[in-house]
């Protein structure tokens, strides 16, 4: 795939005219998806997709971009790409100049290739299906290659390929209570999978007790890393974006302006080096290894795209146009795993939150619901599962004045999302113990 992209890019660059600049972004994926319900196969299949975007600009700073699907057949694809290039060239003179157009002009080629295939999907499924036969299991097993590339007419070439799998699943009991699990890696290991499954089965046993409906009110809660991830994900809806903070649509705009602070133990980075996504932007800029976005409870640096840098006359840090983080890394705290329940003492243990949205974006106030694996904690013991509850609380409370502490252990959560293509986002997070967490319905 790498050679195909490099060769077709070289051919295409020969069609560039004087004073034109062309940047190519390549995305491809060959994936198997096996959907399961009630521990049996629901829909299995394979998807192969290749696409490339062409961004053509000229000396007048006019720019037009087109994204095309490709066959993988060199001659046919080259013909499609040349036609697309000609279309862009024809349309370009009619468009206004783009004052915020900025591409990397210094050639910085990089390459990260993981082309070794350690995974046999049929063998893995042959192992999984008998192990789960007695369970009510639902979820998706996905695996395969993801390729990302960039080439520009100045000679820059960047490549990132990855082979991995994700088994994202839930196991249910007869009361319709469930535990959510995920086993993702580059190399399948039967023992690792069994450990993952066994941990879920143990938790599911606690869920077999009669669920309790708790009254609305304020609780001391423990948010597992996956529950905290939902809150951080909402904060990321513009929260770290330079532009969104500048125009005030960011949920963290008061934090970014220094009007609010979070708890001093909260530090959040964009850690590209520690994640699994490509380290180059679609404009050809190389992303810094780490960006400290929040440090010791204070906002320190936004994600700033090249467009924002020109619009607001600030330096950029090679962020995507959405200025959204892809590799969140939150600093660990001091609470050891075996002290979590005693720290809560009486309250709730929340493994998972679901369907979050803002109830007052200006004040970073959000709502959502408990879902998988949520329990009452009494005298430092898990005593019963809870029926679904809605929370409505502000980040400035949850990760501010009401944060008791963060755990010393962190988890790497690889996004199992597959909209359009398999995601390469991730988050490395601790758990959080929070006081006065507001349950409303």
């Amino acid at each position, binding site marked *: 795939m790498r050679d195909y992209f490099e060769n077709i890019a070289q051919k295409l660059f020969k069609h560039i005219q004087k004073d034109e600049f062309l940047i190519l972004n390549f995305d491809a994926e060959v994936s198997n*998806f096996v959907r399961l*319900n009630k521990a049996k196969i629901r829909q299995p299949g394979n998807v*192969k997709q290749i696409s490339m975007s062409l961004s053509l600009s000229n000396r007048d700073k006019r720019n037009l*971009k087109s994204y095309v699907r490709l066959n993988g057949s060199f001659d046919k694809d080259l013909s499609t790409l040349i036609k697309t290039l000609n279309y862009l060239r024809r349309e370009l003179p009619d468009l206004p100049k783009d004052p*915020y157009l900025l591409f990397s002009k210094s050639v910085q080629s990089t390459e990260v290739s993981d082309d070794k295939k350690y995974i046999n999907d049929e063998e893995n499924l042959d192992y999984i299906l008998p192990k789960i036969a007695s369970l009510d299991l639902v979820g998706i097993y996905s695996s395969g290659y993801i390729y990302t590339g960039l080439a520009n007419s100045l000679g820059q070439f960047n490549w990132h390929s990855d082979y991995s799998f994700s088994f994202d699943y*839930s196991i249910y009991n007869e009361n319709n209570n469930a535990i959510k699990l995920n086993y993702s890696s580059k190399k399948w290991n039967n023992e690792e999978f069994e450990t993952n499954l066994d941990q879920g089965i143990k938790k599911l046993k606690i869920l077999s007790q009669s669920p309790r409906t708790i009254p609305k009110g304020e609780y001391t809660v423990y948010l597992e890393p996956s529950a905290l991830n939902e809150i951080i994900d909402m904060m990321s809806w513009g929260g770290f974006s330079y532009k969104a903070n500048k125009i*005030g649509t960011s949920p963290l705009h008061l934090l970014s302006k220094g009007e609010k602070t979070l708890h001093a133990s909260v530090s959040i980075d964009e850690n590209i080096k520690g994640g699994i996504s490509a380290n180059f932007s679609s404009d050809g800029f190389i992303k810094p290894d780490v960006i400290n976005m929040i440090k010791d409870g204070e906002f320190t640096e936004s994600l700033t795209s090249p467009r924002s840098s020109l619009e607001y006359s600030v330096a950029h840090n090679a962020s995507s146009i959405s200025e959204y983080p892809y590799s969140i890394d939150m600093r660990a705290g001091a609470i050891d795993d075996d002290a979590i329940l005693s720290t809560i003492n009486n309250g709730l243990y929340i493994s998972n939150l679901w369907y979050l949205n803002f109830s007052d974006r*200006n004040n970073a106030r959000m709502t959502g619901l408990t879902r998988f694996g949520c329990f009452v904690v009494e005298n430092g013991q898990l005593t019963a599962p809870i029926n*679904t509850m809605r929370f409505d609380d*502000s980040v400035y409370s949850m990760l501010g004045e009401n944060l008791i502490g963060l755990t010393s252990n962190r988890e790497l959560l690889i996004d199992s999302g597959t909209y359009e293509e398999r995601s390469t986002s991730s988050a490395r997070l601790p758990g959080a113990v929070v006081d006065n967490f507001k349950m409303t319905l």
Partner: protein
Amino acid sequence: MKNEFLKQISAYFPSVDYCSFRFVNKYTNIVSVTRNVLEPIEILEDEGVMVTIIHNGGYGYGASSDLTREGILKAIEEAKKWAEYSSGKLVHVPHPPSMRTDDGKYFTHEKDSWAKESNKDKVDYLMQINKSLKSKPTISNWGASFRYNKIETLFTDTNGSDIRQNISYILPQLVACAEYKKQIQTRTFGGHAHARQIGYNFLRDSDLITKAEQIANDAIELSMAPNCPDSKMDALIAPDQMILQIHESIGHPLELDRILGDERNYAGSSFVNLDMFGEYKYGSDKLNISFNPNQESELATYNYDDDGTAATKKYLIKDGILERPIGGFYSSQRVNQDYVACSRATSWNRPPIDRMGNINLEPGESSFSEMIASVEDGILLETNNSWSIDDYRNKFQFGCEKGTVIKNGELKSVTKNPNYRGITKEFWHNLSMVGDETSFSILGTANCGKGEPNQTIFVGHATPPCLFREIDIFGGE
């Protein structure tokens, strides 16, 4: 090219119990002007084929953007491989249709075609809208965009069916934010609600320049308005919020694949169970909900779904009684229920699953002024900006951009951050008045997420405004 494709593809049919080919070509064009500057125009062209095979008690698909002979043969091979592997391991063995559809067709009617309007003219119009949005100095952010999607689908199968559909839709999006004492209020038009299968004339006829001025004025007024009060009161919900209410608390819980548990790891389940159909009182007698794929210009209007099932209007809820689920041809086999043509896929690279098509709330008999006049203490809620509901589609909380207090039968002051919460099982019983034909609005949302692997799809909702009694309303901080 397309007719030749159908002829050629027949030659590829493998020797299996059933095989279908679904070829999809998608074209997307997004033109955006933000704060008077043209953003990079997006043009996306996507095409590929999904081969589905049902054979010897197995099911599998192979999907590829490689439309060369070798590419299609490889996709067939993958589909066969997975059908073979899944034989004896499936949660349900699908029974393929025996019917043949000859020359099935559907085409969106674009009075003025998108393609005939030049990029320059579109940009000029958006620049004018931007000027109108930034009509006052307190507007802190503004922008407008047009999105056009065209989806051509060709379907053929071993029964000899031959279906060709061209769906195109347009979505305008306008946004204005106003800042007052470091509090920002946002007002939009389009966005979540106003996608339609319609021509470029829709954008001209909608008078977006006047709309832009209105939402800019609204944003300024909201930025200085008090927070919505916390109280139990009547809620008159405008169509651009009703569509979200219908979508989340009727559409999703009635999807049969959720009821059967397929979505429990991702989009969730449903409080509805199979015993409820034909008996359960979902809401008041005034609640009538249809699956209507035949409503002209609505977003999910079509003649066939992605499994090739012919699409006709059917009631899901009639006079408040739950009649049937949103389950496609194959899902309905799992429970012996009546089906609707709702098996849809986001593109060639995802398999069809049960989706909403057009899910409409049928008009009632009340005029808008009659509904206002009937409210002693209440609020008019307009334009969704926040949505959250539990995985059984029961406990919900929704937020709107604008609330207008209603006192003693009259519209009064504007309030910001209006939110309401409730429980689906109870909420629809509080439906007391339904707007008439004159207020029936054809709307739709372009991004409904569901499925593993994940899929987003466009969904239509047509509805009048509706009045609900005694709703839990609250505001921001």
